C-alpha cells in the first residue's frame, strides 16, 4: 500500500507550481515536450468554439475569474491548471437549479479551431441541491488546450457526467477535472479519451459531507504515438462516503503510451469509508507501454472496505479462438473482445446515443468496418 503521490497543494498561486523538471513524482510520466506550450505563463486569446443548443431551462453564462474561484470545486492542482485559471478570462458556467430534474442529457460540444494560439479555458458545472442531471462534454477538432473542468454536486443531488476527448491527432489537452460531492450526493463521471497527440487529465474528488458517492470511470484507446495520462485523486475527508474508480485502457502501435495513477487518501476522520479502485490495460500488440500505479493511504482504523487492483496484459488469443470456433470472423471476434473488455465502463454511460458513439469510435480504432445490413 503506497502513499498517495499527488501533492496536496492546491492553489491559484503560480509560485506554488514552478516549471517541472520531470523529476517530480507528478510529472515523471508526463509528455513534457508536447505539453511545453501549456506550461508557459503567457496569455492567449485562443478559444474553443461552443456548439451547443440548450433547452430553455438550462442556463449557460459567462462569469468572471473571481466568480469562478468562488464557485470552483477546487483550486488548481498543478502548473497547467493554475495557468488555465489565470489566463482563461473567466469561465463558462452551467448552472442547474436546485431540485431541477433534467431527464434529457445536456450536451456541450467544444470544438478546437486550430493548434495556434494556445487555448486556456474554464468550465464550471454547478448542480444545485437535490437536482438530477446528465451532462455530456465532447471535445473535438484541433487545439492545444489547457482546461479546467469543475463540477460541484450539491447536497442530495445526482449527476451523470461524460467527457469525451476525441481530438485530432495533433492536439494536446491537459487540465484539472475537479469534482466536489455534497452530503448524500452522487456523481458518476466517465472520461473517454480517444484522440489527441497527448492528453493529461488530473481528476480530484472531494467530499463536502457524509454519504457522498463517487463512481469514477474512464476509458481510453491509445494509438501509435499517442500519450494519454489519467490521474485521479480521491480525498476521503468526510465519514461514510464511497468511491469506486474504474479505468480501462487499450493500446496499440509503436510508442502508444498510457499512464494511470490512482491515489486514494482516507483521512483520520473519514470513518466508514468504502473505496475500491482498479485499472486494467489491454495491449493489442508489442508496440505500446502502459504504466499503472494505484496508491491507497489509510489514516483511520475504521474503514468499511478499501482495495485496489491493477493489471496490464496482452490480448487473450484464446478468447478470439473461442469466438472464431463459433464461426465469428477474426475481425468481429477482436471487436467483441475489446468492447467486452470496456463493458463495465461503457455500461456507466447512461446516454444510449453517446454510448453507441463511443462504441463506434472504439470499433474505428480497431479498423473495424460495420457491415451495412
Amino acid at each position, binding site marked *: 500500500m503506497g502513499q498517495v503521490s499527488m501533492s496536496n497543494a492546491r492553489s491559484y498561486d503560480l509560485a506554488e507550481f514552478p516549471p517541472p523538471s520531470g523529476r517530480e513524482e507528478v510529472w515523471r510520466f508526463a509528455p513534457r515536450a508536447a505539453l511545453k506550450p501549456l506550461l508557459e505563463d503567457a496569455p492567449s486569446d485562443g478559444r474553443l468554439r461552443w456548439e451547443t443548443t440548450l433547452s430553455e431551462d438550462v442556463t449557460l453564462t459567462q462569469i468572471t475569474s473571481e466568480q469562478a474561484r468562488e464557485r470552483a470545486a477546487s483550486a488548481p492542482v498543478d502548473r497547467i491548471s493554475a495557468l488555465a485559471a489565470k489566463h482563461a478570462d473567466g469561465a463558462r458556467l452551467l448552472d442547474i437549479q436546485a431540485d431541477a430534474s433534467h431527464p434529457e442529457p445536456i450536451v456541450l460540444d467544444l470544438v478546437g479551431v486550430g493548434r495556434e494560439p494556445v487555448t486556456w479555458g474554464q468550465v464550471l458545472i454547478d448542480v444545485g441541491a437535490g437536482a438530477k442531471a446528465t451532462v455530456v462534454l465532447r471535445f473535438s477538432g484541433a487545439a492545444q488546450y489547457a482546461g479546467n473542468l469543475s463540477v460541484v454536486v450539491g447536497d442530495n443531488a445526482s449527476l451523470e457526467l461524460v467527457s469525451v476527448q476525441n481530438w485530432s491527432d495533433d492536439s494536446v489537452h491537459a487540465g484539472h477535472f475537479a469534482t466536489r460531492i455534497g452530503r448524500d450526493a452522487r456523481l458518476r463521471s466517465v472520461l473517454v479519451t480517444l484522440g489527441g497527440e497527448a492528453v493529461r487529465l488530473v481528476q480530484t474528488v472531494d467530499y463536502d459531507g457524509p454519504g457522498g458517492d463517487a463512481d469514477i470511470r474512464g476509458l481510453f484507446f491509445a494509438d501509435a504515438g499517442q500519450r494519454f495520462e489519467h490521474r485521479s485523486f480521491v480525498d476521503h475527508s468526510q465519514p461514510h462516503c464511497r468511491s469506486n474508480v474504474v479505468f480501462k485502457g487499450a493500446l496499440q502501435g509503436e510508442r502508444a503510451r498510457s499512464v494511470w495513477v490512482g491515489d486514494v487518501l482516507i483521512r483520520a476522520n473519514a470513518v466508514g469509508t468504502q473505496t475500491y479502485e482498479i485499472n486494467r490495460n489491454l495491449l493489442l500488440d508489442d508496440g505500446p507501454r502502459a504504466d499503472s500505479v494505484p496508491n491507497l493511504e489509510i489514516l483511520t482504523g475504521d474503514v468499511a472496505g478499501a482495495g485496489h487492483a491493477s493489471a496490464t496484459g496482452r490480448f487473450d*488469443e*484464446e*478468447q478470439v*479462438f*473461442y*469466438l*472464431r*470456433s*463459433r*464461426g*465469428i*470472423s*477474426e475481425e*468481429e*471476434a477482436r471487436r*467483441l*473482445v475489446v*468492447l*467486452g*473488455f*470496456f*463493458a*463495465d465502463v461503457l455500461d456507466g454511460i447512461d446516454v444510449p446515443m453517446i454510448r453507441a458513439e463511443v462504441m463506434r469510435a472504439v470499433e474505428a480504432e480497431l479498423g473495424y468496418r460495420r457491415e451495412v*445490413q
Partner: protein
Amino acid sequence: MTELKIHELHVEVESDGGPKEILRGVNLTVVSGQTHAIMGPNGSGKSTLAYALAGHPAYRITGGSVTMDGEDVLDMSVDERARAGLFLAMQYPVEVPGVSVSNFLRTSVTAVRGEAPPLRSWLKEMRSAMADLNVDSSFAERSVNEGFSGGERKRHEILQMGLLNPKFAVLDETDSGLDVDALKVVSEGVNRVRAGGEVGVVLITHTTRLLRQIPVEFVHVMWQGRIVAEGGPELADEIEANGYEQFIGAGVAG
C-alpha cells in the same frame, strides 16, 4: 450424406524441449448421422485431435489430411471451419468478459447461417433452446463462460451445438464435471440434435458414463497419439470392465 475424413494426421505442439509430436498418424472417418466415441486415458491426445480439427493455432499439423466431402479442412481458417459445419464443444470453454451470452449467440448464429435471424423469432428460438437445457433465462445477460459452474459451461456448449446445427460435432469431455441430473439434461440436448439424423458426432471421453446416455455405433481407443483399437459399443463395455491396460502397448511403436 457428408463425410469427415481424418487421414494419417500428425500434430505437434511447442514444448519446453522444442516441438513435441502428440498425434502420430490418426485415421478416422465419420459419416453424417453416425455417432462415434473416442476413448483413452488422460494424456493420450484426444483433446489435441479436437483442437487440431478446430484449427487452434497451438497445434501444428505436420502431416496427413482432414477433409469434409473432399474439401480440405486444414486449409480453412478457424471460423471458416465453423461456418463449413464443424463444431467443437470444448473441454475447457473460454471466458470472454463483457460479452453477453445473447450477443455472442446471435453473432455466432448470424455468422454460421450467413444472415441475421429476425429478432423476434430469434428470441423465441434462443429462449426455447435455453429452456430445453434447463438454463435460467438470466443466463442470456451473463458474460460468456464467466463465473459459470462446470455444469453451466457444458450446457452452454451444447446450447450452441443446438443453435448452430453443425454437420459434425466433436464433444470433448462433455460429461466431466456434471452431476447425474446435469448429465441427463446435456445428453438429452445432444440426442435432440442427433435425432435430426444429419449430424455426425464424435464423443471424446475417458469414462463410459456418457455412453450410457448417448448410444454410439463405433468406439475408438486412443493411446499415445494413435487409434490402437476399434469396435462397436461392446468395446466400451470391455473398457468399463477391464480398463485400458489391455490396449496399452498394442500398436505402439518404440
